[in-house]
C-alpha cells in the first residue's frame, strides 16, 4: 500500500469510502439549504423516519449476501402491523390492560411473523424455487391476507400507550434539573425546555440491528452466510447445512420485516397492508449502496446502515426543503446506478486488503 503513488491511494480511498463521503457531503449540503436540518431534532427525525428502512435493509442484507433477494419484506411489514394491531385491540377490548395487550400482541406477532419467512425459506432452500419468485409469491399472499384481515379499513382504536411508546423518547432531560428515562418528567416542570433524546423506536431498532450485525460479522453463522453466497457448492461440501441455513436466513429477514411492522404500528397507531410497500426499493438500494453485490458473497450491516442513512438524509432533506418527492425517485435511481458503477470500476481498488 505504502509504495503506491499518492493519486492511486486517493482513488482507493475514494472507492472505499465514497458512500461515507457522499453522506457527509449530502448532510452538509442540506444543512446549508434547509433550516433546522443539522440539529438534535433534525437528526432524530432522520432516524425516527428511517427505522423501517434500517430494519428492512438489515433483513435484505442477510438475504442478498446469500445471493438471494426478498421481495416480500414490505408486505410482511404491513401484515405484521395489521396482525399486531388486531391482536392488541382485541385484547384491550376484552379488558386486558394496555401494557399486557401490547406485550402479548407484540410477542404473538413476532412469532406469527416468522411464518412467511419460514415458507420463503422452505421454497427457496428445499424446493429450489428462485428467491425472486418465491418471495414475490409471498408478497402477493401476505398482501392478500392483510387486505382480508382489515377489509379495506386500517386498524384503529389502539390503546394510547402504543402511541406513547411509538412516539416517545428514551431519555428526557431538562437541562440542569431532571433526567428521566422513557417517561416525560412530571408536570411540575411544565414550561421548561425539555430535551428529548433518542426515540424509543430507534433504540429498539438499533438493538436488533446491532445484535444481528454482530452475528453476521463475528460468528460462524455469519461466516457461513458469506460462504453460501460466495460458492454454494463449496459450502455444501464443507459440510455446511445449506438448506437449513438458507431457511434461517429468510426467517431472519421475515423477523426484521415483522419488527418493522410492529414499530410502524406503534409509531402510527394503526395497521395498514401497504405500510411497507414503498420501502422495498429503498431497502435494496441501501444494501447495494452499502457495498453488497446481488450476486452474493458481499455486504455488511454497517454498509447497509450507511446506505440507509444516505437515503434517509436525502428524503428528509428534500422534504424539509419542500421539494417534491418525485425528485427523490430520480435521485435514488441515479445513486443506485452510481453505486454499482463505482463498484464495477474500482473492484480491485476497493477490495484490496479487506
Amino acid at each position, binding site marked *: 500500500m505504502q509504495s503506491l503513488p499518492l493519486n492511486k491511494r486517493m482513488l482507493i480511498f475514494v472507492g472505499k469510502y465514497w458512500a461515507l463521503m457522499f453522506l457527509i457531503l449530502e448532510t452538509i449540503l442540506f444543512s446549508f439549504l434547509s433550516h433546522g436540518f443539522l440539529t438534535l431534532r433534525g437528526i432524530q427525525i432522520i432516524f425516527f423516519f428511517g427505522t423501517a428502512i434500517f430494519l428492512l435493509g438489515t433483513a435484505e442484507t442477510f438475504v442478498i449476501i446469500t445471493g438471494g*433477494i426478498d*421481495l416480500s419484506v414490505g408486505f410482511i411489514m404491513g401484515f405484521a402491523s395489521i396482525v399486531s394491531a388486531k391482536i392488541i385491540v382485541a385484547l384491550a377490548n376484552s379488558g386486558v390492560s394496555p401494557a399486557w395487550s401490547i406485550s402479548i400482541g407484540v410477542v404473538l406477532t413476532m412469532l406469527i411473523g416468522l411464518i412467511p419467512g419460514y415458507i420463503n425459506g422452505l*421454497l427457496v432452500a428445499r*424446493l*429450489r*424455487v*428462485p428467491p*425472486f*419468485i*418465491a418471495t*414475490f*409469491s*409471498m*408478497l*402477493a*399472499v401476505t*398482501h*392478500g*391476507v*392483510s*387486505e*382480508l384481515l382489515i377489509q379495506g379499513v386500517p386498524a384503529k382504536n389502539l390503546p394510547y400507550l402504543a402511541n406513547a411508546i411509538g412516539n416517545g423518547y428514551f431519555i428526557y432531560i431538562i437541562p440542569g434539573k431532571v433526567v428521566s428515562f422513557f417517561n416525560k418528567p412530571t408536570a411540575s416542570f411544565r414550561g421548561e425546555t425539555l430535551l428529548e433524546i433518542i426515540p424509543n423506536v430507534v433504540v429498539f431498532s438499533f438493538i436488533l440491528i446491532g445484535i444481528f450485525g454482530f452475528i453476521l460479522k463475528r460468528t460462524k453463522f455469519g461466516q457461513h452466510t458469506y460462504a453460501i453466497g460466495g460458492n454454494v457448492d463449496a459450502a455444501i461440501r464443507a459440510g455446511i447445512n445449506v438448506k437449513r441455513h438458507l431457511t434461517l436466513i429468510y426467517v431472519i429477514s421475515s423477523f426484521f420485516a415483522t419488527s418493522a411492522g410492529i414499530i410502524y404500528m406503534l409509531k402510527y397507531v394503526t395497521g395498514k397492508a*401497504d405500510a411497507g*410497500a*414503498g420501502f422495498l*426499493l429503498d431497502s*435494496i*438500494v441501501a444494501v*447495494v449502496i452499502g457495498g453488497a*453485490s*446481488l*450476486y452474493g458473497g458481499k455486504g455488511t450491516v454497517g454498509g447497509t446502515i450507511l446506505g440507509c442513512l444516505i437515503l434517509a438524509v436525502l428524503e428528509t432533506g428534500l422534504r424539509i426543503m419542500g421539494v*417534491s418527492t*418525485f*425528485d*427523490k*425517485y*430520480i*435521485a*435514488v*435511481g*441515479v445513486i*443506485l*446506478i452510481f453505486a*454499482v*458503477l463505482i463498484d*464495477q470500476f474500482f473492484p480491485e481498488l476497493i477490495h484490496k486488503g479487506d
Partner: protein
Amino acid sequence: MILENSEISGRIDLQKKIEAVAKYWSLIFIALLMIIFSFTGKGFLSLSNFQNIVHLSTVFLLLAGAETFVIITGGIDLSIGFIMGFSSVFSAKIIQVMYSGGASEMVSIVVGSISGLILSLIPGIVNGILIAKYRVPPFIATLGMWGITNGITLKICQGFPISSLPPKLVEIGNSYLLYIMPHKAMSFFRIPPGVADENIRNLIRIFPSSLFFSITVLTILWHLLKNTKFGQHTYAIGGNMDAAIRAGINVKRHLIYIYTLSAFLSGLAGVFNVFQTGIGNFTPYNAMYELFAIAAVVIGGASLMGGKGSIIGSILGVLLLKILENGLQISGIEPFYRFIAVGIILIIAVIIDQLFPDLF
C-alpha cells in the same frame, strides 16, 4: 427379464404422460379455470366477457412479450411498468398540448404517439448500455431506471392523470372490427350510424381492435424469437454467455437491442393505454406491472436463469392470470384472494419447472 422390460417401458410411458401434463399444465389449468368459472360466475362464459378479458390483457401481453426476451437472456427488466407510465404520460401530454393549441385531432394523436414511442427508447438504451458495457447487474440497472422513470413521469404529470384529450382516442382504442345490430345493420370499425342510445345494449361487437393489435405485435415477436438469428442468439446468450461470446456473437450489442426492445414494447403498452383509457396514466407506485409480467413469463415456462422461455408460453401465462382475475371477480370473490391465488399459482409453476427441468 421380459417382465423387467415391460415394467421399464410402462414407467417410461407414465413418465411421458406426466411430462406432457407438466409441459401443458398452464393450458390445462386455464381449461380447468374456465370450467369452474362457467359454473360459479354468471356471464363468465360469454363472447363479450372473453373479448373483455383479451382487451384488458393487451397491456400485459406487451409487457410480458418484452420481459420474455429479457428473461431468456438471463436478465430481468424491472423498469417496464414505469416506462409504460412514462410513455403514456408523455404522449398524452404532447397530444394535450397540441390539441389544446389548435392542432387537429388526428395530427396531435399521431405526433403524440410517435414521440411517446421514440422517447421510450431512451431508458431502454441506457439500461442496455449500463448492463452490456458497464456490466451493471440487470436487476440494479433496471431498478435504478425504475426510480428515474417513475420520478420523471410524476414530474411531467404532477401526480395527476393527463386528461382533456381528443375523444377520438378512446373511440379508436376501444373499437371493434365488426359491429352487428341484429336484423338491422352491420359495420366495420365504428358503431353503425343511426343506432339509438337505448338500443346500444343490443349491439353485438366482434373482435376488439386491441386484440388485432396484440396479435400483430405478438406474432412479430414470436417470429423474431423463433425463426430468426436474433432469436437464436437471444437463447444462446441466456444459455451460456461465454459460449455465445466465443461463438462470435456480439453479445454487448445484442443485449443493448434486447433492453431497447423491451423499453419500446413497454412504450407501446403506454401509448396503447392512452387509447384504451383516454387519459395519460402514470403507473401507481405499487401497481407492480413488472412483477406481474415477470410472473406471467415464468408461468409460461421461462427460467430466471435464462436460456428458456417462449412467446406462446408467456401469452398463456398472461391469459391464465387474467382469466383467474376476471373469473374470481365475476364469481364475486373478494379481490384479496386474487393476490393469494396469483402467489400460489406462481409457486406451482416454478415447482413444476423444477421437477421437470428439461421440458420446456
